[in-house]
């Protein structure tokens, strides 16, 4: 069910007036559906049921993602995943997943409003992130499809390597988003990257 009330992102986007600036190298991807899913990876029946709903197999290799046509699943722990999509409304996806998992020990929790996604892309993306992330993000160590929960500057973040541009999705909790955005802007200062200002709220 979609409420007529427009949603607001932590970085100022308003749902009804949002035009994602796809060509920018640093921008928020607001209002993605984000579902936290927990189940026992040994429960193959549950895994199969999930695959039917999502169209993608949950990644079982630590710190990897699996991308389907409409949805991306990121490994967060041995029994925990984050589902990211712009093609399904949160309520509908939660309902479908819960129905598929009836009788299984599992947890499906909507966290869409609790976090947001910042996309950073382009040749200087690694240099920007290296200023605040202690992980080795070199493509040999963190290729497209990799993900990791880590610290970015002084905030927790989930990093997802999207493609070889390189492009990263940075998922942060809502209340930390203004800090992370300010930090990214500052870190990107010498690379002439800026958050677009005109087409957000």
């Amino acid at each position, binding site marked *: 069910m979609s409420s007529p009330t427009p949603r*607001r992102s932590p970085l100022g986007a308003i749902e009804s007036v949002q035009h994602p600036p796809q060509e920018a190298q640093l921008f928020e991807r607001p209002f993605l559906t984000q579902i936290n899913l927990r189940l026992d990876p040994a429960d193959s029946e549950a895994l199969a049921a999930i695959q039917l709903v999502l169209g993608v197999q949950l990644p079982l290799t630590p710190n990897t993602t699996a991308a389907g046509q409409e949805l991306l699943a990121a490994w967060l722990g041995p029994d925990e995943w984050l589902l990211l999509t712009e093609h399904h409304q949160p309520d509908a996806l939660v309902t479908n997943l819960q129905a598929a998992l009836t009788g299984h*020990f599992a947890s499906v*929790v909507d966290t869409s409003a*609790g976090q947001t996604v910042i996309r950073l892309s382009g040749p200087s993306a690694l240099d920007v992130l*290296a*200023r*605040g992330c202690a992980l080795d993000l070199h493509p040999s160590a963190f290729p497209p499809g990799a993900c990791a929960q880590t610290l970015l500057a002084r905030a927790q973040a989930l990093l997802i390597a999207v493609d070889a541009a390189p492009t990263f999705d940075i998922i942060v909790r809502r209340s930390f988003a203004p*800090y992370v955005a300010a930090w990214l802007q500052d870190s990107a200062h010498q690379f002439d990257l800026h958050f677009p200002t005109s087409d957000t709220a």
Partner: protein
Amino acid sequence: MSQPFRLDHDGRIHRDAPLQFTFDGRPIDAFRGDTVASALLANGVALVGRSFKYHRPRGIVSAGAEDPNAFVQLGHGARTLPNRLATVTPATPGLEVRHVNAWPSLDFDLMSAFGLAAPFIPAGFYYKTLMWPRRLWPLYEHFLRHAAGLGHAPDAPDPDRYDHVHAHCDVLVVGAGPAGLAAARAAAQSGARVIVADEQAEFGGGLLSTAQRVDGLPAPQWADAATAELSSAPDVTVLSNTTAFGLYESNLVLLAERLHSHQPDNAGSESGARVWRVLPKQVVLATGAHERPLLFANNDRPGVMLAGAISTYLNRYAVAPGSRAVLFTNNDSAYRTALDLADAGVPVAAIADVRLESDGDLPSQARAQGIPIHTGAVVVQAHGRGRVSAAELCSVGGAPLGTVECDLLGVSGGFAPALHLHAQAGAPMTWNPQIAAFAPQPSHDIHPAGAVTGHLDLSSALRQGTAAGAAAAAAAGCSNGHTPAAPRAAETPSSDLEPYWLPPGDLARAKPQFVDLHEDVTLDDLRLSLREGFESIEHVKRYTTLGMGPDQGKLANPLATGVIAQLLGRDPASVGTPRHRPAYSPVSLGAIAGRHIGPLADPVRVTPMQEWHESAGARFENVGQWRRAWYYPHPGESMHEAVARECLAVRHRVGILDYSTLGKIEITGPDAGEFLDRVYTNAWKRLRPGRCRYGLMLGEDGMIFDDGVTARLENQRYLMFTSTANAAPVLAWLEQWLQTEWTDLRVYLTSVSEHWSNIALAGPRSRQVLAAAGTDIPLARQDFPFMTFRQGHVAGVPARVFRISFSGELSYEINVPADRARHVWEALFDAGRPFGITPYGTETMHVLRAEKGFIIVGQETDGSVTPDDVGLGRLLSRRKDFLGKRSLSRPDSVRLDRKQLVGLLTDDPAQVLPEGGHIVDAPGRRRPLPMRGHVTSSYFSPVLGRSIALAMISGGRATLGGRLYVATLDEDRWLPARSCHHVFYDPHGARQHV
């Protein structure tokens, strides 16, 4: 004519790029490629500073990071930087350089009177003398601060940009001299990701000041080619002006890269410095060696230099640091300097060689050039005041050999490996008698190469470097089958050195002989330390301040080891060396802070209603990283007035509070009820879906850890609220038990703190406001009673509404998804206008809960408080086990005199007690005064029209109504009060049940 000491040929300086900087305001002509030190020497500036304690004149000693004297102040005002070494600071146009440690001026230093008083201020003087009388300390301190200058701090915020970068590589090479360049090439050729760093502006190290050839090329040319090759390699990062200053656990290496600092045209635009946090798989330490000074009287006079540094200034910078030289050595290397001096046309008046024979290749060449060589001879004293004017020679047996005039006295006591990083890592090192110094042992991930191993000749540096680079790459898992060939250089055999620590016989008593030039530690100071029983080198260090300067005793410590060994008649290996600690050389505080300054110092967390609070004129308080609305003053209102208005609005009408910061954890699974039974003190399994319950969580010690309400959303789904500050610790605590102890429980936890915003409506009219805002939830008392939960919509937004209360009033806590919370907040506020709705902040929340005697974890509790202590013993279930239960029966947990929660009412109803104030039974001045407890919360209660306080009082519940006194900062002023039950308002809770 400027630069009178500049040679007219050769060197690595760019004669087509002249530049000018200033030293103490005087213009200094230099060339690109100069360091500040080489330019000062080219201009005949002998005196660069005054010593730390005696303010003796000091000159440049070395050509690198080991210099104890060449500390200068760069720039001025906000951008000034103290403790920079002239020897590694590139000369740049317009650079402002100033001396440190002299007052009022370098040439006329009043403090040098200390030098005359030196016999009366030996090591330990300050500790022993300035301790008393205590009341004079401010006077001493004022004087000492003035005297003990180590440069000065900026007088305004630094506009430069300082940065941090994390980096990873297979092989980190520290030092880009012959061994380092060879290692970096070998590692890169093996396919490794390489970072190579050198503290100097140019790569090459010793290659830049030798006439030897590498692979048929002049050494400097080979260095350039190797550097160019590395710079163009794809996975090699080349960092010049970069000092590796610390090596920590897991081989984390910190590098300080000095950028374009202190050029006047560069303010604020680029980084001042960048700290690299490198996590290499393998480390090659090609850090070289530091030449060791020698002891003789007045060995600190300007003009006394390390012999190798003289060669560097001659060959690399085309500077003759003097016009007539004497050399004093115990090994062959100073003969190379003698030949370099002769080549440059600087007469060498004498070489004093400790050894009875010197017949190696280099001594033979020097002899052939007719340089006077005295074997079995030592320098025992330098003459001259502002600069050395002559050297007094003796035989090693003590027989005078006369005085030789000179303005340059080169010394070489052999070379001590620069094993600082190696030693910081705790890697093993051993005494190498061949070089009379400690040398590093390789470990599985640290590979020393070159002079740091004690092998000083070029050919072995290149061989070792190549081998270390290849071995490091292989150990890092990079091997492409390519075996790099070592660059070739001629072998230069040299004869052994003769360890020389103390002048012969009574000459060792001559004064002053400096062991540590920076800290003004003399041979006499070491003797005094040993005489007083401080024999361990660590004790000597602390007694004398040996090696405690910003140079970290790079020259002093290797010398001190031998000197102490000889004074004690022990083996130097058993004397050891003081612990090496970061930082290898000074790093500016700005670089360490990096970008964690100003608004980026720490995350500021805000709720979706932040902008609304700001436009409503809220004042904010920090709660951890959260910024929460504190109170909302109307124009002209004081905090007290605003809080009183907000409190009365909630008690009489309705208030609205942003309570989004509370922690929220969804607990799912068939065993969720059992899990709650174990972590909370009270019983949970029989809580019906749709109902809420307050719970207390204890640590294993039985002390209150957190509290909050948990609701049973569905049969197998609960929502737990935690306090704001404990949101993360509670989740970690619960996960820890599930993952490590209760792996059989089928329970999943998911934090939803940020997904759900929490808006509290509180007050007798809150039901009407919620209805007016529009909701599909039936609100009648019987449909939605106290301590229940309903799901539905509020203002068109899906909502979970909880009838729970932290104010004691009729209250609804409305949880809505954070991305629509602002809309719901505004809808509730608009709907509440006719009912007099008032936004209230955390201060009013605190007053309201204190009126009700509700505790706040961390305010009433401090980690040593049990549930019974705060009157919540009824929440301790007897029928089940829970975390912390067993600790509650410890004798200490059941003492009758434990501090217990009580209320306090002051005799003067207007008097608000100081929070934290200590409480006694009877005031007085006698000491110790027995303490009964302390005030934990204290407010003026508007609804009661008087002050109230909560306190933790020893045995408090048994003595309710008793008189107590609260201390103030004025020890004669005591505030009388009586204890009472801790619930001040609506003790039966009628108001929240309506």
